[in-house]
């Protein structure tokens, strides 16, 4: 599946290693193909106009002072 966020094999291997995966495992070939397809989901995100919207991650500093 085409994606505007291509991940080449060296970059993939580097990121897999950083994440603690065994890059020598044969499973990595299957994962590389899967990741290329899975990341296509982000293509639509890149086309989305989100100007003016902050990330909607929940954070409430007061939550740590309630005990």
């Amino acid at each position, binding site marked *: 599946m085409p994606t505007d966020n291509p991940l080449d094999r060296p970059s993939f291997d580097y990121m897999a290693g950083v994440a*603690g995966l065994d890059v020598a*495992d044969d*499973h990595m070939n299957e994962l590389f193909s899967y990741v290329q397809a899975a990341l296509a989901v982000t293509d*639509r995100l890149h086309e*989305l106009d989100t100007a003016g919207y902050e990330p*909607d*991650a*929940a954070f409430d500093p007061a939550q740590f002072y309630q005990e």
Partner: protein
Amino acid sequence: MDALELCYMSAGELSGLIRDKQVSPVEIVDAHLARIEATEPILNSFITLLPEHARQAASRAEAQIQAGNYRGPLHGIPVGLKDLFNTAGVRTTSGSRVMDNFVPTEDCTVAARFQQAGAILLGKLNMHQFAYGPTGENFDYGHMHNPWNPEMVTGGSSGGSGSAAAAGQCTITMGSDTGGSVRIPAALCGIVGLKPTYGLVSRAGLTPLSWCLDHPGPMVRTVEDAALSMNAIAGYDPKDQATSQRATPDYASALTGSVEGLRIGVVKEYFEAPVDSEVEAAVRAALAQLVEMGATVNEVSLPMFADAQAISGTILMSEAAAYHRDLLASNGGNLTPSVRLRLEAGLFVTAADYLKAQQGRARFNHEMAMLFNDVDLLAGPTEPITAPPLLANEVAVGDRMVGTVAALTQFTRPYNISGTPAISVPCGFSGDGMPIGLQLAGRPFDEATVLRAAHAYEQASEWRLKRPPV
């Protein structure tokens, strides 16, 4: 009283009999254990069954009630929990053999609240591994099977909860919903599934899939039982920082039977996506019935429906990978291959894309809030299809072939993004006898209106009276 009838009675019906001492919790639990013994070889709803625990709890409940200490509508009612709800002293596998030996020392808040209400835990229910899949297939503990046709999936990830409630193995079950995992099996198994507002029911003690998308919710055979369950489990929990401190109403009192004056918006994009013709006909007939009952129904547009998969998929992949990262590194080879791939893929989503998805979520939620200026509820099909066959990677939707995961989650994901309450209520059957679900969604913390409309429709129809052939 006939044992099978006890198994198909709702908590609302059973509670009156228990309170009036016409039937004992022991009798009810024994009936359910017999039902489980008879049907479990077909359905495989449970990962861990707790017959001795349940019988002892039933005896205690019986003694308490005989002594005049009746606790309320869930006292003596058989409950099952998806096997990612921690239970003290009972293994909690999250549907994976790698967790086979995990025995929590503490109950999750939901389990503790059910116990306080006097409910009786029958066992821990089968699920898609780590809740990461919408079909209810499990290669470690065996696949779940749909009570209406065991060759078909239950839907997932809370598949055991769906089959157990539908087949009368439990009166109340609990699931968790990150992209539809309560509502999907509810629709495909012909029961009621409520995904409450994010922050209304505690996630404390549940194995996360995505911290900001996970919603625990009841899966039951009647809307009244969803309301009774919510009365027991909803509300602030200091152990879950996402829970709201606002007061919770008596949800059962909202079930007035009336939809008079309710404004229902039908999201037109739901019918522009591929939808099976029998599903569309059933949902449109349900909407017509709501109009006859006094609601107004108008078409509305949610243009960002098309962005829902990108937004929720990116957030879900990232958070699931973050939570399971250590497990992937240490024990990834022992996970189900498809689940392992989904989890590992999230390790490759960039922080920038994750935050872009959260920005998209904010815009999506703004758009949905605008819709609720003009309507009280949004409506559409819960699923575009009825239950597909087990292990089908693609399914036919009308004249198109669509990936099973995408097909099953497309109508449910939007309300995980918005965090707003959404319910699936049975609204018909296909020609081959498989259930169809109507989805109704409301404003944040307005479960009362969602339950009221679902209950009024349920009472005006007779779908709840049908029983699966198993």
